[in-house]
Structure formats: structure tokens, C-alpha cells
């Protein structure tokens, strides 16, 4: 690529990449330039970050009930069966 200008498709890709990996210097610069000119992608970045946080808190707040005694019985009977 000979230009510093990104398409919105590519810019949003870099936004997602940034959540998981380090961007190269060039990528950082490209993204910054793009966001200066593009409200839609700037908005996308904020909203994507909210969704990331939402997923994080979702995971923390999840407490599904499980009857451990029932599970133990089930496993014991499975084990006994597997030996026959």
C-alpha cells in the first residue's frame, strides 16, 4: 500500500485488531488519520469498546445454578457403567 489512507472496512479491521494485538506504527498512524476524517468509524470504535466491556461484565455476572450432588451421582453411575 502506497497511501496512508484507509477505507472504512480496513479502518474497522484495525480497530478490532487493536483490541487483541499491537498495531504497527504505520497502522496506528493510518487509523488516527482515518478517524480524524471519519465520524462513522470514530463512533464505531467507541461502540465496539462498549460491547467489549459489556462482554467482560457479562461474563463476570453469570451465575448459572447447577446441582452438584446430582452431577456427582450421574458421574458415579456413568463410571460404574463404563466398567461393565
Amino acid at each position, binding site marked *: 500500500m502506497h497511501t496512508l489512507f484507509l477505507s*472504512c472496512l480496513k479502518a474497522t479491521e484495525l480497530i478490532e485488531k487493536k483490541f*487483541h494485538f499491537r498495531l504497527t506504527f504505520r497502522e496506528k498512524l493510518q487509523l488516527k488519520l482515518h478517524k480524524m476524517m471519519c465520524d462513522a468509524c470514530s463512533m464505531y470504535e467507541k461502540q465496539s469498546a462498549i460491547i467489549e466491556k459489556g462482554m467482560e461484565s457479562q461474563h463476570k455476572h453469570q451465575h448459572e445454578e447447577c446441582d452438584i450432588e446430582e452431577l456427582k451421582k450421574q458421574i458415579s453411575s456413568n463410571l460404574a457403567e463404563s466398567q461393565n
Partner: protein
Amino acid sequence: MSKSKASSLNEWVEFYTADLYSWAHYKVSDAELAKDLVQDTFLAATEKYEGFKADSSPKTWLISILNHKIIDYYRKKVRQPVAKEIESFSRFFEAGGDWLETQKPQNWQIDEKEEHLLDDNNFQQVLKECLDALPEKWSTCVKLKYLGEKNGEQICQELDITPSNFWQIVHRSKMQLRDCVETNWFNN
């Protein structure tokens, strides 16, 4: 089965089921699946019992079997092929890569209210439904970061996919999630 093997396995089921279950549930965030994984772990433990060294802790040994089961589960998910047309970005972008006019992110108007939003159970419910609506392969990639507090490189290694493959799946999933949340929460 020799008496000692049978009795130590029964003892382990009694002692460690709860811990194994909460670990599995933490890693896969699905109660039924977590139960299955714990059952599989004990079945595998029966088969591999002779390989267990009496001087190591049974719990550590069982957890390591369980971890293998969890990784196997995720690898299988990610290898499932996804139809080409779903992978495409043409639902969101023009051929040149600009946003389709109808797909541009709208202003959610939540600048000071972000904290409240994340504490809102109804919002969390919408987000959950949107996550559940993703193809499994995608939601695995999206969720994995929060399941083991891992970074991108480690996740790719576990799933045996390349980094670019990984973030493209995440990118495509996020497009759909964002759109789903906007439609079902902000425009509702």
C-alpha cells in the same frame, strides 16, 4: 476395576466435582456443556488412571485433563466451516470499502451514561441474545478473550489459527454484534 482404583475414583468424584464444574463453567460459560466436560474428564481419568502418579495432586491431574477437554471443544468449534456468504462484509460496506449509507453507526447518545448502560440487565440481555445469534465459530473467537484472560497470540495458539484469521473473524462478528445491539436496544 480394582478396588483401590474404584474407591479413589469415587472419592475424587465426591471431592473434586464442584471445583471442576466451576472451572469448566468459568471457561465455557454454559452449564450443560460444563457438566458434560466434567463427566468426560472423569471418564478419561478412569482410562488413564494407571498414568496418575500417586505423589501428585489428584485435583491438579484432573484439572489438566479437563483443560485438554476444553481446548478440544474450542478447536472443534473454530474448525467448523462457515458459509462464504456469511463471511462477506458486503452487508456493511460498498465494494470500495466505504460504509453503506444504511449501515453507518448511529450516535448512541450515551456519553455520560456508559456505566449505567453496562449495569442495565436489559442491555446485558440484549447483548447476550446478540452473542447467541452469532455462528458458534465466531462467538467462540469473540468470547475466548474473556474466558481465560488471554491475549490474542495465546488464543490463536490454543485455537491453532493465524492472527489475521482470528481478528478477521472477530471483526466480522463485531460488525454483526454492533448492528444487532443498535437495532434491538438503541432503536427500540
